[in-house]
Structure formats: C-alpha cells, structure tokens
C-alpha cells in the first residue's frame, strides 16, 4: 500500500509548504487520513487550495464539538486519490465559546449548506454569509438560546 | 294482473335487480380472487367458502357504518349521487339479453340508450366529487371528466362499427345476428372496447381519478357508510354492465351449443372479467396527460380504421 501513503504524504507536504506558518498541527494518522489544524480565518483559503490544487469538491460533513472552553469544527473533505473521493482530509479549527461565528464555505463547496445549518441549529455557531441560515432540525417552537449538543445542556424532565 | 306480477318478477328478481346485484358481487369476488392468484396471494378466504361472501360482507359492513354529510357539502347532490350511481348501471343492464331476452322489451336504439346511461354515470361521478367540498375530491372529479374525454369516443365508435356490421342498433338483435362473434371479425374493435372499458371502470392503468391524489380516494373521499356502499356496489354493477355489453355485442350473446343461453352468457362474461383483471395486474398506473394524449393519438384513429374496414367488408359482401 506504499503508493497510497505517498499520496497523503504529498498532500501533507503541499499543505505544509503553502500554509506552513498558519498550520498549528499536521499529521497523517494512517492510510487515507490527514488531520490539519488551522485558525478560523485561514480555513477558507485551505478549502480553496484543496479544491483548486487537488480538485477536492466533496465535503462529507462538518462535525461540531463542544470542547468546554471552545468549539471545535472539523471539515471532512474527500480528496481524490486512487478514486475521486479516496483520501479524507480533516481540517480542524477552534472558535471561542462566547461569540461563536465562522465564515461560511457554501460558496466554495455548495454541498455544505445543510451541514452548516445543522451545526448552527444544534451548537449555535453562526455562519456568516450563509444564504439562509434557518432552523434545519429543531422544531419551530424550540427556545432560541438552547443548543442541545452543548455539554452544559441537560435534557429537562418532560 | 298476472302479466304485471310476471313483469315485476322479471324486473325485480330474476334477470332484473337482484340477479344483477348478485352477479356484481360474484364478479367482484372473481376479480379479487384472480387478481390475488395472479400475484401469488390467496385473496379473500374466510367469509364463506373461499371468501365467496366477502364482497357481500363488505357491503353489509359499509351499510352499517355511520353515514354523515359534511357541513360544507351540497346536501342535495351529496345524497342523490350515490343512489344515481347504483341505479344507472342496473337500468342500463335491463337491456342486456342475459337470458336471450332482456328484462325490458328490446327496441331499435337501446344500444344508444345504454351508452348515454354510462355517460350519465360519469357526470354523476363528477357531481359527487365536485359537491363534496373536499379539495381531493374536486381534483378527482376533474380527473374523471378529463379521462372521460379520452376514452368515450373510441368506445362509441368501436361499438358503432359492430352495430353497423350487425345492421341494427338493438343489442339483442346484434347479439342474435352474430354467426361468427364480432370479436373474431373485428378484433381491433373488441380490443379498443376492452381498453375503454378498463378506463371507464377506473381500473389500473387508468385509475388516475382515485390514485392521483395518492392516499385519498379522489372523488370518493368524503363518502362513508351507506353512500360508500352504494358507490362500491355501482362499481361492480358497471363491471357487470361492461362485461355484459362486451359479451352481447362482440362475443355473440347467449348463442352456444348444448347449454341454455344464460350459461353461455355467464361464461363469456367471466372471460371478459378475467381479461380486465389480468390487464389490471400487468400494468402500472399512467399519468393523466399520458392517458388523454394516448387516447386521442392511438385509440381514436384505430377505432376509425375499424369502422372503415367494417364498411368496406359490408360493401364487398
């Protein structure tokens, strides 16, 4: 399986050379897996870079995690390797907990519209520039300030 | 006095109302049982021997159910249409020679009367749907009329060409005049009539008035209890009427070797019902625009062609 690991190495190398100063953490954890951590501002550039350089157009999903002191967002991008969606590049960012806002990536990857709405719905992160950031999942009468996936949210007795 | 009693007996009991209704239930049973066996299923089983009394059981159950009129529905039409729907096919069936002689004395042109009664039924269905103040039924009502525009004319022409071949407009005369059944002489006419019959009875692939509104039953939506029972019964009665008409006009009525005419007539009607059931089993449902366009683009020219062939054959002979 040496050929495929070299592809991940190649991607990691490219990322390092172009965004070296900005990347705070970059590791290849196995065949077809690349983890890279970047500050929120340069996330869009990374995605644009992956799209133009590697023709990575498939965003699998966006995972939002409440890390108690901050929110972590992971953008799972499928980059073409042996097949058009082989290698999974997970781009991670951390945003402060008090006013969680993120630039939207819908214009780069149209597939991400629903994922951003879902994270907004369940974690309360505002995506600026999203065409219609309405509720996706929670019912209309769900209180505005409550976000179920936050760690401090406890299900109330009905 | 005896004559009146005899007539009453003929109209109400033997080849009349009771006989036709019983026939309707039997045909519904045959239709459901055959449809089930085609699909490798059993079909009605527990009500009576092999589920024979299932249609009757359904009818009685519906009759016992609560019967209501929606507030916004037009009470006049809402209550009349079920009765009309049940009586029209029965009245039309009085001119079909089940036992060699129809219930009411045949006259020249009873074929036209029977066809107008079937058209009246379509109008009744439209009124029933339109005046039951439900969005689904109003959509279903429109669909009934739309589909009616499609299949009616080819049906009349195919029957007309048979009438011309027999040289008379009386169903009984047409039935008796056939040495070789018209289905063999005019296969095209018979095929068109069967397709049109399938559309008239709103069976798949033409059950768009009910199915298109998906879950709800189209123009039948608001009806429940006794009214729905009557509409169900009218559906079976129309099957009897359609099969009877097909047998009389295309399959040579009651003429046959050993058995009396009534037995031959029933056998041929069962064959027509089985044909209708197998059509219902084999096809998927078409869209309303496909049906109407298909009827005007294919059925009508073929019907006219059949008319032409019959005319040429007559002139030649």
């Amino acid at each position, binding site marked *: 399986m040496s050929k495929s690991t070299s592809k991940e190495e190649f991607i990691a190398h490219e990322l390092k050379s172009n965004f070296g100063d900005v990347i705070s953490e970059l590791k290849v954890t*196995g065949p077809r897996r690349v983890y890279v951590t970047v500050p929120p501002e340069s996330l869009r550039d990374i995605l644009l870079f992956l799209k133009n350089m590697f023709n990575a157009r498939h965003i699998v*999903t966006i995972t939002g995690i409440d890390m108690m002191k901050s929110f972590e967002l992971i953008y*799972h991008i*499928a980059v073409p390797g042996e097949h058009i969606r082989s290698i999974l590049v997970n781009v991670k960012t951390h945003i402060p907990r008090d006013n969680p806002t993120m630039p939207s990536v819908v214009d780069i990857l149209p597939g*991400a519209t*629903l994922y951003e709405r879902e994270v907004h719905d369940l974690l309360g992160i505002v995506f600026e520039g999203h065409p219609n950031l309405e509720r*996706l999942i929670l019912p209309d009468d769900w209180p505005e300030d409550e976000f179920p996936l936050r760690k401090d949210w406890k299900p109330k007795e009905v | 006095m005896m004559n009146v009693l005899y007539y009453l007996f003929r109209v109400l009991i033997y080849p009349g109302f009771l006989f036709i209704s019983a026939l309707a239930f039997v045909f519904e049973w045959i239709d459901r049982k055959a449809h089930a066996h085609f699909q490798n299923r059993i079909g009605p089983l527990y009500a009576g021997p092999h589920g024979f009394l299932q249609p009757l059981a359904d009818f009685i159950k519906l009759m016992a159910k609560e019967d209501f009129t929606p507030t916004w529905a037009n009470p006049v039409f809402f209550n009349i249409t079920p009765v009309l729907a049940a009586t029209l096919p029965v009245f039309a069936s009085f001119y079909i020679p089940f036992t060699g002689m129809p219930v009411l004395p045949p006259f020249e042109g009873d074929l036209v009367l029977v066809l107008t009664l079937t058209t009246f039924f379509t109008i009744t269905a439209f009124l029933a749907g339109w005046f039951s103040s439900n969005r689904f039924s109003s959509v279903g009502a429109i669909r009934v009329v739309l589909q009616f525009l499609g299949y009616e004319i080819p049906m009349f022409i195919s029957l007309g060409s048979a009438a011309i071949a027999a040289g008379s407009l009386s169903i009984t005369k047409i039935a008796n005049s056939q040495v070789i059944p018209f289905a063999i002489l005019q296969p095209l006419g018979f095929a068109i009539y069967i397709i049109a019959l399938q559309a008239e009875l709103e069976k798949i692939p033409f059950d768009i008035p009910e199915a298109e509104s998906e879950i709800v039953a189209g123009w039948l939506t608001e009806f429940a209890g006794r009214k729905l029972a009557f509409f169900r019964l009218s559906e079976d009665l129309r099957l009897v009427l359609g099969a009877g008409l097909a047998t009389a006009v295309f399959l040579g009525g009651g003429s046959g070797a050993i058995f009396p005419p009534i037995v031959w007539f029933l056998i041929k009607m069962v064959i027509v019902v089985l044909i209708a059931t197998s059509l219902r089993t084999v*096809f998927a449902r*078409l869209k309303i625009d496909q049906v109407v366009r298909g009827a005007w683009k294919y059925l009508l020219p073929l019907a006219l062609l059949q008319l032409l062939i019959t005319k040429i054959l007559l002139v030649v002979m």
Partner: protein
Amino acid sequence: MMSIYRIPVGPQHPAIKEGFQWNFKLDGEVIVDVTPRLGFVHRGIEKGMELRSWVQGIYLAERICGICNTPHTTCYCLAVEQLYDVEVPKRAQYLRIIINELNRIHSHLLWIGVLGMEIGFMTYFMYVWRDRERVMDIVELITGNRVTMSMNMIGGVVYDITPPMEGIIRRGLDYLEERTKYYKEVLLNEPTIRARTENVGVLSKSDAIDLCAVGPTLRGSDVKSDARFDEPYSSYDEISFNLVTYPYCDVYARALVRADETLESIQIIRECLDKMPSGPIKVRLKRTPPPGEAVARVEAPRGELLHYVKSDGKEKPYRVKMRTPTLANIPATCEMLKGYYIADIPAIIASIDPCYCCTERMLFIDINSGKSWVWTDSELRRYSLKYYRERRK
C-alpha cells in the same frame, strides 16, 4: 441528523417518508430556489450516544435506520476499532462484508418493489417483496433476527457462519440472482414503468458532484464513486467486483443502478464464502478505548456513511457524529426541482417521494411581489391542472 427511511423513487431514500416541508422561492412560474425543512422526527441520536456506554452505542447506532442498520454498526465499530488501533481478525472482516452485502440486497430489493408500488404497479411490488423474504431468511439464519442484525461488536463479529449454513446461503443466493435478473428484465421492457420514470427528476453529472450527492443517486448520474472503492474497509480490496454507473441521470438510471448492485452483491457474497479464512471472529478488548478521535466511512445501500468518534478515555464517548447518506442527497434533490414550473412540482415530488403525507405544506414566496402563501399539495395539484389546461387551449 437522523437517517430517513426509503422514499420509493428519487434521489433520497426514506422508506417511510419523514414529514418534509419544501419552501419554494418563485419567479412568477419558475422555481428559483428550494429550501427543505427537516427534522420532524429528529430523535437526538448524537446526544443519546453521549449518554450511553460504548457497547450500548452500537445498539443505538443500529436503530438510526431500520433497513440499513448494519452499515451503521459496521461504521461505528470500525471507527471505535481505529481508536483501539486494533485490526479485526480476517474471518470477521469477511463476515462483515457478507452481512453488509446481504443488507444491501435486502435494501435494494425493498426499494425496487416500492418503486413499483409508487407508480401503481402492485404486482411488481408483490413479487419483488415475496422474493425479498429469501434474503431475510438468510439473515435470520445467520444472526437470529430478520432485519435488525446486530452482527457487529467492537473488535469483531458476534455470529459465525457454520458449514451447513453455507449450503443454504448459496441456494438462496442462486434463487435471488435468477429473480433479480428477471425483475431487471421487467424494468427494461415494461413500457408503463419507463413512461413514469424516464427523464423524471434529472440530476446532471456536474450538479451531482458539486452538491456532494452520494450512493445510487450519484452513480445514476454517471459518477464513479463508491465508499467500498474509495476507502476499501474490512478487506473489500481483496474482493473483485465492479462499480455500477448509468449515464441517464434520472430516476430510471437509479433503478437500474440498484438492480445491478444487487447482482454485484450476490457475486461478492459468493466470493467471500469461497475465500472465507478460518480463525477467531472476535478480539477481546478493554471496556473503554484510549482517548483520541477516529473517522470511518462505509457504503450504505443509500450512499456514503460517515461516523466520527471522539473519546476522552471515559466510559462514555465524548462525541459521536453520524452523517447519513440521505442528508447528503437533499441538496441534490432541491437541485432537481429548480428550473421547473410550479405545475411540474407534483410530478417531480411524486417521483421523489410519492408516499408523501397529505400534511405536506408548501410555502411559496414570490420574490417579485414578496407575497407569500401556503398551499397544501392538493391545491398545488389543482393549480397545476388548471395551468396545463389553459396552456393547452
């Protein structure tokens, strides 16, 4: 987002349609934009995962979608095994392939049958679902339950295939192959089916890629992508099978993709049975995985399924993210609706989710006048009827 059951026809596949609400933005007659409103049956599965232990999480993951329950458990177990950084024994990997493919056959046959029911072809539905019983019997034979297989465990597989079972499975597969070929024949030759499914709900190849569609929807638009190829998990790369795609980009293409994939799955299972290595089917693991995070991707019958798992060394997972294939297909569905007239919505919606419930509400906003009104589906249908009749005069 909870996975949705199968919609009989169309790109996304919930069997029992969720309560969907489609919001249309119009420019006069033409649909400019569609935004869906989901979640009427959201059960908070991801939050539930955080309240359960790792092993109990398997049984919750299994109940996300009744029909494709096995891919969920496989994906969840693969992710957690990556946390343990342990390799499942070879025999367990082959058993996982067999169970996943059996589930794919079951899911595809179910969908093809429901496709028939949607377009009014009840006989096709009856026959396909009668033969689908054979798959369920095989699954019951192996795992003890006809649908909810609960075959996967963290570190391997629970049930093993004994030699006498192999004979029964092979006979079942032969029968299924013969029947699926026949049903594909009917799909190809039955004019009324083609009349209702050809060039309906068209999704072009570029849209399918841009909008990240997945599964048969994507492969129906001639895009070669399948998680079993993209990411050969549990030794799929040792099995030779080909990737099915069709170029027509409409509902008919998706039906053909599913029919062919069923035949492929049957081949895969046969090959697995031939090459089945011996050895243990499970590896003993500690109760809680070491802290870390892992991502696993699996090809569910409806498309690519992703599970992200994060553990902080405690008894319960810190975060579990599941992205179901149907959610990925919703933007593609909206794309199919754009550019058509209001009058075409019933046709497309009928082809997308024909068993949609009558509580379907459609919110129209005319962007010119800003006027907005809410129609139920039947008013919309009456409008489309009137619209077409005027156009015909």
